């Protein structure tokens, strides 16, 4: 017998987006509708392969009847919903979220889209003053306490890069606390639960138990946290070393799609190649087998391909 998968049959509801009336499937998020309509909406903590996290607050839109703005990534459409994306209130909030992040986090390695949004929304991180110097032990701050600032410098999360294993680095000076890595390590993909948010407020940070080193934690080095990190806070040691040496050449990168040969699951791999050598391995988030997530072998087990005899 052949089974035909029809998918779930959903009712259509009517929503109005920036004055246009649309019929959209019930259960879609506002962001789904905006993407479908080609309305560009900045996102940071959203990813196609994770449940909405709703922490960064950059995708906010106005919904009629709501006093405050609404996160488009998480809010599902209701029949008769009236959404506005082009208001001053929306633009202001998006600009400020990007500006507050840029003033406290190193955003240099965020995607080209993020860089473009910061220009388009008119972000001026410099107006909060010069950045405060890096701190070695941000994790040691006592919860609910801080030293009163004098306002001469802007507090930020600058700190040394954590390199404690051979596969990836944790550069928390670039962490915007989007929680994507926590979700990928936990219930959205890996179910390893090696990391969690720890601390509170501006001192909140991503940590293993007791802020320990990765090899002492439950980490299985699947690298799915790297796969979802939007700002380069988590990256492979290979990429980190190339960047440090000034040999990182994204403009010369080619991507080759293949299938992982380690086991029979059939995960699609995308080999990112720079100057004749593999620098990273990813998987497409819309792939039906991986949903963008891999295991340690698929993501890091490529060295043997490159162990060519010296010419």
């Amino acid at each position, binding site marked *: 017998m052949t089974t035909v998968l029809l998918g779930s049959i959903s009712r259509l509801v009517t929503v109005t987006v920036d004055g246009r009336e649309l019929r959209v499937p019930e259960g879609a998020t506002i962001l789904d509708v905006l993407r479908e309509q080609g309305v560009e909406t900045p996102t940071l903590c959203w990813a196609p392969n994770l449940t*909405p996290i*709703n*922490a*960064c*607050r*950059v995708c*906010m839109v106005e919904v009629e009847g709501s006093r*405050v*703005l609404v*996160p488009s990534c*998480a*809010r599902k459409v209701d029949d008769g919903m009236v959404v506005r994306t082009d208001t001053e*209130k929306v633009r*202001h*909030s998006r600009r*400020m*979220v990007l500006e*507050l*992040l840029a*003033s*406290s986090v190193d955003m240099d390695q965020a995607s080209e889209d993020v860089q473009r949004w910061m220009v388009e929304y008119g972000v001026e991180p410099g*107006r*909060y*003053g010069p950045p405060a110097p890096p701190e070695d032990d941000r994790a*040691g701050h*006592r*919860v*609910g*306490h*801080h030293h*009163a*600032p*004098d*306002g*001469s410098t*802007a*507090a930020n999360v600058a700190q040394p890069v954590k390199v404690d294993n051979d596969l990836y680095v944790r550069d928390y000076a670039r962490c915007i*606390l989007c*929680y994507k890595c926590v979700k990928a390590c936990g219930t959205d993909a890996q*179910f390893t*639960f*090696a*990391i*969690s*948010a*720890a*601390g*509170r*407020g*501006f*001192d*909140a940070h991503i*940590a*293993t*138990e*007791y*802020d320990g080193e990765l090899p*002492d*934690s*439950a980490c299985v080095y699947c690298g799915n946290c790297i796969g979802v990190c939007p700002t380069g806070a988590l990256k492979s040691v290979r990429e980190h070393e190339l960047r440090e040496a000034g040999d990182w050449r994204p403009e010369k990168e080619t991507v080759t799609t293949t299938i992982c040969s380690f086991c029979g699951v059939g995960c699609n791999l995308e080999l990112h190649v720079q100057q004749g050598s593999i620098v990273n391995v990813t998987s497409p988030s819309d792939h039906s087998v991986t949903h963008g997530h891999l295991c340690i072998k698929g993501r890091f087990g490529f060295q043997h391909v490159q162990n060519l005899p010296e010419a």
Partner: protein
Amino acid sequence: MDLRLSTAEPTEAERRAVDAAFAAHRSPDDVPGADVRFPDSGHAARGRRHILLPALHAVMDAVGHLTPGALNHLARVLSVPPADVYGVATFYAMFSVTPRAPHVVHVCDDVACAPAGAEAVIAGLTEDLGEEGEGKEACWVRSPCLGLCERAPAAMLQLAGRPDVSVAPAAIGSLRAELDRIATEEPTRVPAADAAFADATVSVPQAGQPQLTLLRRVGVVDPESIDDYRAHGGYEALRRAVALGPERVIREVSDASLTGRGGAAFPTGVKWDGVARAPSRPHYLVCNADESEPGTFKDRVLMEYDPFGLIEAMTIAGYATGCERGYLYVRGEYPLATRRLEHAIATARAHGYLGDDVAGDGFTFDIELRRGAGAYICGEETALLNSIEGHRGEPRNKPPFPSTSGLFGKPTVINNVETLYNVLPVLAVGGEEFAKVGGGRSTGTKLFCVSGAVGTPGVYEVDFGTTLRELLELAGGVRGELRAVLLGGAAGGFVLPDGLELPLTLEGSREIGATLGSGVVLALDTQADLTGTLRRIAAFFRDESCGQCVPCRVGTVRQEEALARLTRGAPKGPELTLLDDLARVMQDASICGLGQTAPAAVLSALKLGLL
């Protein structure tokens, strides 16, 4: 769940503390000692996570800080990943994951205590014990408002191996005496320090007056005696509720136009009706007793002096909305209220007022008390739910609202303490009669926490519609020359001396762009350091932000920095623009009420030219 645990082992004391907490909170179908650390243990493993917060408390109470061995043991027993245990443990200000003295003096330096001499207390403690957080046997730390503003300045002693106590008014002498007693005397079930709270009129100057409704039993009944409670009208409202039936009870509450007293002023009848009708079971009741708004102490006073009132009101709420279990989440810094409530719950249970057949009326209802651990954000209703469930106290995205998906994903009624006490008079006189006092959405009486530069600080009960001037006069008038009144707390705003005719109603305060909030009325005279007050409020929000969303996490930091520059004499123009930009993104885009109201007081002060 396949946990990877470290090799750290707990000490015998830590193991005993965790095991006792586990035994006390385990659900009946959870087999003692059953190891559920395997991948498909499902509900058996996940169902234990809510024990995490009580178990962390148990270790803190026994040892004074959280060692890797204790956290590892907790992770093993509860089947919670060690990283998650650490994430939860580092969320709360009363917990310490680094070694700390077993006796910690939390000294309030917040808006009411700072002008009352908190810094002198701190100077004395620094001399005795050393710098903040240092000291071997005892140490001191600064604390946000401890909710003892009528007795400012206040301190709370968090003590390993014996019950915590509050000391207020705190002077270096009284603290020395208390620390001395701790060092030399054996602990008793009821600590000697509680005796300082025996006189209710210090907290409620109106105590005993005949016109009181919510406060009528304060200072009149013995808070430790259920018989005395019954002799003063106790459990009459429950009897009436059972006679009416659940639907009529909800109708009376709706007819009374009772609105939530926690700050959001949501109609209680609508909330109850929503949960009562929710098809999903079980239903849960949660009493939000995590009173932490700076300047607020009304709920504490009610719980300390009339604990059975809250137990009865929760029972009625549970009966009306179909809940068999109620969680009472009481602020961690309220040791006396916690003791009184624990005693009241145990006594009510022993007398058949809680349990499988409440008062012989055939319905089931019981209450479990949970202690907060030093996090203002856990007063936000969805953060509170996460806290009970053993997660970090981070607010949830709404919708879904708790009435459809709340505690453990089930329909949940969440009410503030004062709101629940109001249910008793609603049933005593009927909803329509109750609504005759006040008007509009502001019906009945309201408790105000009057502190600062007034003759007699304390909790005052007045009819809605009383003016701010009348309230201040009731509290013995302003000492000195009034500069401003902080109305509604850190999340509220200021009222100038020319605005004292303000009628204290939800509508009246909204009209002038203020809020009654949690009922804070903090009087500041011309001697008060207003700039210092504002900076303390800004620092408070920075400390208490959960850190989840960007507008609040970074916005509260930038707000405090801008305020610091302004007080140092930086040019006003750019700073005011900055503060306005920050305020708008915090109000419009924060996840919860904390971020949305974090700029309120600063904006209000700037608008009124107080800075």
